[in-house]
């Protein structure tokens, strides 16, 4: 199957959902709601000036309508009676099966799937020949961290944090930081599990109830985790918003990029994850404004330095001075 395939067209899929929604009959108003939610924000109009809703609700000429639904006593039903069964069974496509099989072979899949689930799926996809294989794609520019010593403990920690996140409950835990300091019996509300694409490690972003601030911990360095079934005075959504607000910089970083040696392309690729605006200044120069989280600052400074003389920090002054300081130290070495 193609990756870019008509079967996965948004409207093609919308028809699928509409037919299944109509299994027991659906009123026109309900169908209009489903269509509104499923369509593009700007509605499409066919060459014959018909909207998608017109076509699916058979509001035009017979040859222009889809006629996949039939109206009976004010309700719409699939055009073929499904005898009480689901009108359109849901099945994975070949492309999806190929991807799913690759998923089952991921090194950390056992963190997320129990042996039972994994075995059942492996059995179902046993004879399926998937072209999606790790051996065909090599990741580069990665960070290879030391192996996790106690895999069982790591798996147990991961599952507890995942459970706490799903239940939106706080956890008590201990944590050993990279300098060997042990922090015992801490109380925090997990916000997200963060996965780094470069070092393939999970970290958990939490809101510390003890310190009333966002904190981050490595899952492997945590211990004595227990889920707390009590109100800690803050919910996950509020904690998440506090993290976004407290840690988002008020002032963007403004860079001037000279487009030599593909510097502009490299610069945009480096910072593609961030909210940004850009404009052309002329004379092969461009201005980029980057909105960033304060905890990313060190990484951004390193990225700016890595781009060399083609990128100049215009503001804030603090970051400009840090870049200049490091460059001067580099020359002095």
């Amino acid at each position: 199957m193609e990756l870019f395939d008509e079967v996965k067209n948004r409207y093609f899929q919308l028809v699928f959902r509409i037919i299944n929604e109509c299994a027991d009959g659906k009123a026109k108003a309900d169908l209009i709601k489903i269509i509104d939610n499923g369509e593009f924000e700007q509605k499409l109009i066919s060459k014959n000036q018909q909207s998608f809703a017109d076509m699916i609700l058979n509001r035009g000429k017979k040859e222009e309508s889809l006629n996949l639904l039939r109206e009976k006593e004010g309700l719409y039903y699939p055009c073929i009676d499904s005898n009480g069964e689901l009108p359109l069974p849901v099945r994975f496509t070949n492309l999806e099966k190929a991807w799913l099989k690759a998923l089952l072979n991921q090194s950390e899949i056992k963190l997320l799937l129990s042996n039972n689930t994994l075995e059942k799926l492996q059995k179902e996809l046993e004879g399926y020949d998937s072209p999606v294989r790790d051996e065909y794609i090599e990741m580069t520019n990665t960070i290879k961290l030391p192996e996790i010593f106690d895999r069982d403990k790591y798996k147990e920690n991961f599952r507890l944090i995942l459970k706490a996140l799903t239940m939106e409950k706080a956890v008590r835990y201990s944590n050993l930081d990279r300098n060997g300091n042990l922090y015992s019996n801490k109380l925090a509300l997990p916000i997200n599990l963060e996965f780094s694409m470069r070092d393939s490690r999970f970290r958990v972003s939490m809101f510390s109830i003890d310190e009333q601030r966002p904190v981050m911990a490595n899952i492997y360095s945590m211990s004595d985790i227990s889920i707390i079934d009590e109100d800690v005075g803050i919910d996950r959504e509020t904690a998440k918003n506090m993290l976004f607000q407290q840690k988002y910089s008020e002032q963007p970083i403004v860079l001037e990029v000279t487009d030599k040696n593909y510097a502009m392309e490299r610069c945009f690729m480096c910072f593609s994850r961030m909210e940004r605006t850009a404009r052309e200044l002329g004379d092969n120069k461009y201005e980029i404004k980057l909105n960033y989280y304060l905890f990313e600052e060190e990484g951004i400074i390193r990225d700016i330095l890595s781009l060399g003389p083609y990128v100049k920090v215009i503001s804030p002054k603090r970051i400009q001075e840090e870049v200049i300081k490091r460059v001067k130290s580099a020359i002095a070495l």
Partner: protein
Amino acid sequence: MFNEFIKHYNTIRDILRDCFLYGYFSRDGLENKRNVSSRKVSYEIRRIQQYIESEYIKFDKDGRYKLMSLSYDYMRHPENILVSTYTTRSFTRTDLLIFYLILLYIASENKPCTLKCIEDGLSSEGLLSYDNISSKTIQRKLTEMSERVGVLTYEVVKRTKYYSISKDILEKLNAYELNELMTAIGFYKNIVFPVTAGYFCEQTLKDYMQYERKIEYENKKIFNYKHLHFHPVIEEQVLWEIIKAIHQRRQIRIQYHSPKNTNNRSNRKVLNPYKIRYDVRHGRYYLVSFDKRSRCIVSRLDRLESVELLDEQFKREDFDQEYRAHMLYSWSSASLNPTNKPETVKLEIFINEPEENYIIDRIKNEAPLGFMEKIADGHYRFTMQVNDSYEIIPWIRSYAGYVKVLEGKDLAEKLLYDWKETLANYGIV
């Protein structure tokens, strides 16, 4: 059915890249860059506005120009906003109708059906008119649905095909296990390439849980990603073709689009595709392949205009050693000419111990094939081999103030020149 849909993903690939990655182009700027008419640019911009949710599309003013860009904040939006551009392939009314009529009919019969049985059934219900839809069209659609898409399966009995709905591979999973699978797909959909297929998988499982099992699922958006790029999705159509070719051991003909080279013939090459390399830091795909003389060719996927799978096959294992010889010491994409040896780079590292020990760990982790030795407190030496030392210049630069080059072809001079240039930019001489 609607003009807004497109037949080939290439139609929007370039403009998506220009808008998503760069985002500083006005309409005039895009016309000039791509050398296309203003009408074409307008159509393409309108398409992107249709395909991508408006909250991610930004318009900025630059004088009289309006600049369109796509932007997201990775902390707030871990869902790849560009995947929706893969749900826009055009189809005809007949395509849609036959697809669903066939599925509806076979599902309602609840037993394997022949082409004739399907035709007669649909015709007797008044759903099919031979004036508009021929028997061949239905046959073609049945083949497509069973062989290409995979939602149907068939059995041949006395040279007649009996079609039925494909097996439900999730049948034996209970509600808890389906939820587990949903969480796993929700996490890996941004990691296992092509990620577009992961997003499709997630939607199908959601539909399955809702319609087949009546299980409520609430997406709690548990996962977040660091160093996740969205823009590589733009190259996934090309990536998918290459992955299939590697798997089927088939040669490919690529058309390489290079801004520097407009010679059509030199841009079309027949290659044995061996491996894709994905630079995680920059979000860039490279294809490593070998030509008929076993020369290693590295091509950026964003520069590939098209990939054609040929009938000619190759033995992948013939290139195992070649690949290792060419790419073992590659930082990202630079291959080693077999007549050359890898370059040795020696670095001296100065840190304040113990508070900056993490820098030593980070360097070791980022260059795992290198060797670190401690000379004295706060003073280390790191030796590594690379195919091309110029490839690691950005990496060395990122350790400005900590690292000094001891050995490496012109590296120290090049870096010193860069640092002086950098200071000159700030008016410091």
